[in-house]
């Protein structure tokens, strides 16, 4: 990190680190005990550690003078490493919670590792840790290449990435210690929420400033999606997390929303966490890495426009499909259902656009596992959005809601689409950042691909079976008009599927571990920079 900074930048970094340490100290002292104080100490330790590194390097050699004529890739490299670390954490916890549903005693009798606390560790660790780091890291890469401009600033990329990871660590350790707001995908407590807002604003400013320096008249589609991701996630995050802390010195808080309004706000957020975190940002990734890897032009510029605005506009309406038949008024459910159907068109338009882009490159798809990752991602994107629109139809949802069908849908989206596109992007970016043309081991990539595909299929198919069985058992009636099954019978019927899911997840995790190893070896053998599109000369900073 420090080698890429000038002395002046190191000073700024030092100042920020000291401020972070002070903030941590104040938090720890004010809270006195409990989670918030522990989180204060974490911030203190991180701030001191960073101050130590930066302070120690103050008098070392400056970053080379010609650095402004190159893209700034050090933060991306760090972000990719964090992506891989969180992938292993998040997926390992995923396998663990999957195992617990088959084998409930498979956890120490220690509150921190009980199912209900580990589950949000999985969701947050994987969505925000793995997904978020991947998005931020690739956005820096894509933004610079498609703007032909270096990042507008050298310190804030680090602030964004490190601060963001502090948020993730606060969140997951908080859940394990029992600190949670219980709002799905937004469980982190109020001070972590505020911290994330600060980070996000920094990210947004950096993004816009770099965009302003672009040397291309037009902003590339990938950046539209990354922008939508940054902006809308900020909006969702702030509104959904509005809360009153019980005291300024303790972690507990009460969301300002209650009951049915809270439910609507929560799923307006929750669904659009899917839309703008798990979809929009990754579509940005797809729109960059797919044409780069396949060497093909995007199939249709016009289709890109329609699918982008369709996704941005329609998605926001559909959150109420998570609340069919509940105490949410019927009218809101109807809107959620109908917009979900209309949403299918832009969703499939982007999946179709991606697949059609591969026209003329099918031989590459066959030979190149990396491109195959992206192809499979686009296919699963199409599959899961179709399934989503189907599940949003009220009568279908009456069967699927509350069951493992939803979980199957989730993972066809997250394993099949999100994780696959990330792996495709990583396998493209890591050799490039290491000055190589290929990953250290092509065989390992191939292995990873097949592990990921088979893991996904086993996971998703077993959950479809589980969910549909569950839903049918709950509503099955005998001819004489009496319910056929007790609830516990439906629990017992899940056992084989839960076992299969654990195995599928284990395969997927194994693939991710191989990927992490392969990336590490590749990065270790780094030899400067690969040939890149030349940067346009930058103004002095």
């Amino acid at each position: 990190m420090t080698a890429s900074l000038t002395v002046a930048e190191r000073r700024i970094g030092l100042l920020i680190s000291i401020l972070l340490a002070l903030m941590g100290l104040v938090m720890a002292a004010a809270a006195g005990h409990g989670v918030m104080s522990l989180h204060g100490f974490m911030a203190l330790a991180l701030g001191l550690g960073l101050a130590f590194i930066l302070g120690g390097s103050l008098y070392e050699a400056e970053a080379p003078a010609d650095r402004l004529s190159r893209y700034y890739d050090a933060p991306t490299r760090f972000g990719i490493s964090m992506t891989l670390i969180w992938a292993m954490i998040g997926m390992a916890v995923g396998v663990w919670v999957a195992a617990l549903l088959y084998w409930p005693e498979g956890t120490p009798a220690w509150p921190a590792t009980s199912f209900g606390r580990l589950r949000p560790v999985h969701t947050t660790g994987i969505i925000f840790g793995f997904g978020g780091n991947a998005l931020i890291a690739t956005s820096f890469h894509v933004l610079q290449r498609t703007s032909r401009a270096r990042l507008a600033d050298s310190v804030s990329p680090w602030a964004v990435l490190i601060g963001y990871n502090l948020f993730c660590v606060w969140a997951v350790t908080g859940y394990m210690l029992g600190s949670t707001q219980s709002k799905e995908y937004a469980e982190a407590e109020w001070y972590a929420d505020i911290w994330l807002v600060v980070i996000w604003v920094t990210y947004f400013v950096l993004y816009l400033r770099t965009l302003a320096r672009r040397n291309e008249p037009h902003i590339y589609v990938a950046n539209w999606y990354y922008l939508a991701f940054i902006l809308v996630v900020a909006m969702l995050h702030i509104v959904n997390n509005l809360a009153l802390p019980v005291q300024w010195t303790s972690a507990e808080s009460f969301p300002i929303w209650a009951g049915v309004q809270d439910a609507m706000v929560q799923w307006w957020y929750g669904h659009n966490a899917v839309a703008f975190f798990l979809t929009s940002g990754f579509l940005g990734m797809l729109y960059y890495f797919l044409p780069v890897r396949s060497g093909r032009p995007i199939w249709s510029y016009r289709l890109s426009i329609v699918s982008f605005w369709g996704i941005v506009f329609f998605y926001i309406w559909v959150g109420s499909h998570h609340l069919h038949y509940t105490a949410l008024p019927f009218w809101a459910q109807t809107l959620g259902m109908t917009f979900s159907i209309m949403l299918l068109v832009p969703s499939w338009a982007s999946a179709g656009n991606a697949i059609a882009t591969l026209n003329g490159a099918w031989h590459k798809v066959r030979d190149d596992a990396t491109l195959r990752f992206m192809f499979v991602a686009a296919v699963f994107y199409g599959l899961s959005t179709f399934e989503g629109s189907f599940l949003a139809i009220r009568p279908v949802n009456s069967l699927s809601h509350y069951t493992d069908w939803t979980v199957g849908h989730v993972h066809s989206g997250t394993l099949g689409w999100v994780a696959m596109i990330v792996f495709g992007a990583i396998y493209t970016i890591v050799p490039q950042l290491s000055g190589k043309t290929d990953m250290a081991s092509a065989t390992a990539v191939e292995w990873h691909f097949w592990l990921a595909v088979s893991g996904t299929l086993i996971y998703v198919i077993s959950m479809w079976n589980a969910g549909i069985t569950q839903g049918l058992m709950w509503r099955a009636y005998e001819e004489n008009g009496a319910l056929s099954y007790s609830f516990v019978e439906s629990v017992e019927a899940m056992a084989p599927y839960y076992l299969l899911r654990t195995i599928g997840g284990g395969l997927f995790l194994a693939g991710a571990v191989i990927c992490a190893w392969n990336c590490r070896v590749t990065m270790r053998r780094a030899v400067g920079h690969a040939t890149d599109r030349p940067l346009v000369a930058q103004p002095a900073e």
Partner: protein
Amino acid sequence: MLKLHYNLEKISMGLVAAIILAASVGGIVEIAPLFTIDETVELPDDLRPHTPLELAGREIYIREGCYACHSQMVRSLADELDRYGPYSLASESAYDHPMLWGSKRTGPDLARLGEKYSDAWHVAHLINPRDVVPASIMPSYPWLTRSLDTELLSPSLATLARLGVPYDEAMIAAADADAAAQSRPDSDAMDGFIERYGERPAARDFDGDPSRLTEMDAVVAYLQSLGTLTDAPYQILTEGGQ
């Protein structure tokens, strides 16, 4: 149109503004009316807020992530009425910050759980579910037998009162005492509890150990209160049945 976009693509602030605009409409149209349409939440007269002990139990329910496996929302579907009881009304969670409707039923719905089982059963079940339900895959919670920390109860009630939950000054001031009283119905403090919360909340030694106020007391008190805060859903079912 195409030309318009062709130009929009060149102006980053234009793109930003357009995204914000496009992504705001749906949320506003769906959320704002939930505050303005009166029939969305029709507060029944008999709706009571949670007592301090129940509230403490609710916080533990949240802390342990029970909502990850249990819904508290009986949907308006005939088979759910049959299995669980009257469908849930918006008013039942009107004082719930946050709501705990849930999105997964690994375990059964709990919206109508109150007084379905005995306190002793809940204690046994929470300590080890497989002792009473051999096929259960629910985690054990043996640590709930530790003492309840009541430090934040008063400020919690005060915070909720600021958010519109009907807790008055007296309730806020006596939150700790009321939590203890509800689990020790023979104590003198019970009179004050009844004065503030009436006769309806169940007041018992929930965990079977009168000498201590434990997290188990709180969780069981909370579980026994589910579905008992108002009679309205039951009335709708019987009226509709005529």
